């Protein structure tokens, strides 16, 4: 929605005319942008396929080891996926799809059992539906046969049931909840501690309905792989998302819109600062696995990637090409230096956050009321992201003004053409 507002703006028009004169070609920069997307979504897919294999192994032979292996595979898949989030707000094709894969926050009681301390608010009467325990349910007045848990049931009936966004039945976070379970440690350290026996069908099953839990995990993982297949294909040569950005005269604005919207409203605001100010450990982005610090880190890295025009794949190979940074440097070297410096500052802050969390100072603890050290670490990231947003706005302005080709621009000569 916001994407459209910005992309159809007058600035988009003046920006496109402006950059046509720069030395680094806009088309080359957009080509690099699409190449990085293809690589990062491709990596997300291959790591999700590895997760799928690990889920097979867990189901075939539930044990501490197979559960840990599945968790490790889930975390590994977050690394490339989070780096793709910068594509979301600039590309409607991604934004319209994203809710299937990374929706958050969720009322996890929709899916499986939860602790007695779980509070159902009057915002979502299905927050404790517990589909794993209940084969027959009623949603928005309609009887639902959940006797067999299938990708269709999860994707088309349960996800966003009754139009409520926190009814997240699919995607990374639904799988995360199935693998880890609720994190009941509050603002103390420790992640969810679901026992592997929750996946033991027959004797030894804990948590009840293990066969249905296994079916849910299998179906949700299949959905994730299929969804990532779809998006990876969209960015391959000939894919729809690539074609759209390459043919858009305002393609550069898409890059900057994605960078700015993810930096400011989404990551700094919704994901980091809000959780801190709510003091709620469930408001951390990967709350079941306690992987939040890495999610933040790789979101930030994705933003830096598209500016600098390079991405390191999960196998270590480098994807690189003509960068937005060079385009900016051609026009205003000082601004390019400022942009680079602020992206670096953010990454240092996110690295410090990750180091602290890996060093034993859990993200949950940082969120505790009155924890000044945690607040400083999180706000370091937030402030870095807010500052870099200001530079992104300057880049938008600089690219738009660079050609000084205001004369003849639709935006000034024909106002009604712009504001429609």
């Amino acid at each position, binding site marked *: 929605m916001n994407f459209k507002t910005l992309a159809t703006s007058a600035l988009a028009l003046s920006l496109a005319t402006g950059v046509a004169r720069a030395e680094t070609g806009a088309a080359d920069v957009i080509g690099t942008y699409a190449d990085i997307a293809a690589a990062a979504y491709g990596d997300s897919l291959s790591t999700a396929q590895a997760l799928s294999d690990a889920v097979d192994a867990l189901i075939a032979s539930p044990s501490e080891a197979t559960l840990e292996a599945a968790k490790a595979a889930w975390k590994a898949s977050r690394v490339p996926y989070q780096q793709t989030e910068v594509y979301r*707000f600039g590309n409607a094709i991604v934004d319209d799809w994203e809710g299937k894969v990374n929706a958050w926050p969720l009322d996890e009681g929709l899916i499986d059992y939860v602790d007695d301390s779980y*509070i159902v*608010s*009057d*915002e979502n009467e299905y927050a404790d539906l517990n589909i794993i325990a209940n084969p027959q349910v009623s949603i928005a007045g309609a009887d639902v046969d959940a006797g067999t848990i299938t990708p269709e049931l999860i994707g088309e009936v349960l996800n966003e049931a009754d139009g409520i966004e926190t009814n997240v039945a699919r995607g990374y976070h639904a799988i995360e909840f199935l693998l880890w379970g609720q994190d009941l440690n509050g603002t103390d350290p420790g992640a969810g501690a679901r026992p592997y026996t929750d996946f033991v069908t027959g004797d030894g099953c804990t948590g009840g309905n293990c066969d249905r839990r296994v079916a849910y995990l299998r179906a949700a993982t299949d959905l994730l792989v299929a969804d990532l297949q779809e998006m990876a294909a969209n960015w391959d040569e000939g894919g729809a998302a690539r074609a759209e950005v390459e043919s858009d005269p305002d393609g550069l604005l898409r890059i900057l819109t994605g960078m700015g919207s993810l930096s*400011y*409203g989404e990551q700094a605001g919704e994901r980091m600062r809000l959780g801190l*100010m709510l003091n709620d450990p469930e408001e951390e982005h990967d709350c079941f696995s306690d992987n939040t610090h890495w999610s933040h880190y790789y979101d930030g890295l994705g933003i830096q990637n598209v500016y600098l025009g390079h991405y390191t794949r999960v196998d270590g190979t480098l994807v690189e090409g003509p960068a937005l940074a060079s385009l900016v440097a051609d026009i205003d070297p000082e601004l390019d230096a400022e942009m680079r410096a602020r992206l670096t500052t953010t990454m240092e802050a996110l690295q410090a956050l990750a180091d602290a969390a890996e060093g034993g100072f859990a993200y949950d603890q940082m969120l505790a009321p009155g924890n000044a050290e945690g607040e400083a670490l999180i706000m370091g990231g937030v402030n870095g992201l807010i500052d870099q947003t200001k530079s992104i706005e300057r880049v938008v302005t600089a690219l738009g003004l660079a050609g000084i080709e205001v004369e003849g621009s639709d935006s000034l000569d024909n106002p009604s053409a712009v504001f429609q």
Partner: protein
Amino acid sequence: MRHFLAAALLAASPALGGVTEALDAHILPGYAGFAEASAALAEAAGADCTAPALAAPYHAAFDAWMRVGDIRMGPSEHGALAIVFWPDARGFTQKTLQRLIAAQDPVIDDPAAFADVSIAGRGLFALDMLLFDTAFSGYAPQSYACRLAQRLTADLAAQAAALDAEWADSFAAVLRSAGAPDNATYLSEQEAVRALYTQILSSLEFTRDSRLGNPLGTFERPRPARAEARRSGRSLRNAVAATDAAVEFAEALADWELPATRAALDLVHEAADKIGDPAFADIDDLGERFKVEVLQQKIQGVETAIEEEIGLVLGLQPGFNSQDGD
């Protein structure tokens, strides 16, 4: 070309006049008024903390807030969040109030510790629920909930005073000195003007998308329970007040007349006057739904007029706003 020259001229020095006007005629009196009204609310709660006694000063404080309530820059970038935590899709305010009251949490006796409580349990929307939701509002004069009302109002007054002081004593000067060599925040006057302009458009967009869009939901599934401040019946009042405030802000920022904007605002008032329920509770009635959709369109009309009468004249596009994202 004519427009470009006009833009260049206007952007030179009159734009700074716009910043000064916006501060002196809109922003600073807005925060001062909110500080005063929330102090009055806290004082009223000191005398009688029961819900009925606080309704009038509560509305007065919320009205005062609405003049500047959608601003998210400078001290309000973080500072507004503990005053208005909304929308609340996961019911955090309800959960936080329930938790405090059930535990009789002594945190309410310590002003400094209360400032670290979840923002969902503080500010105007916590008060809206405590004072107007029948699950809470029937509390007795000597009860924990009554003392909670006193703490909430005192905490609100303290936040309001802090915001007022930070704007008046420090951030106003940053805006006024935009483009000065030692100003690292706004490298030019144009950046300051754009930052203010972004606030105006973001506020109108928020009113359209969230204040009205949330209760509208979809045609098949309206969501009256998602109306802002519905418990106190302020939903429509807030939408209109926010639009009035945006126009006042725009008129201060522009050094010229904004006739189309003014005319568009008149249409907003006309549309609002036709709406029956101030909390949009009857929005599942097709006729009532249509009236709220018309109001949405009229607010869009104000946005378009401001874009034409300010944005186009100054060659400005809004920057990123805090509502971008989900």
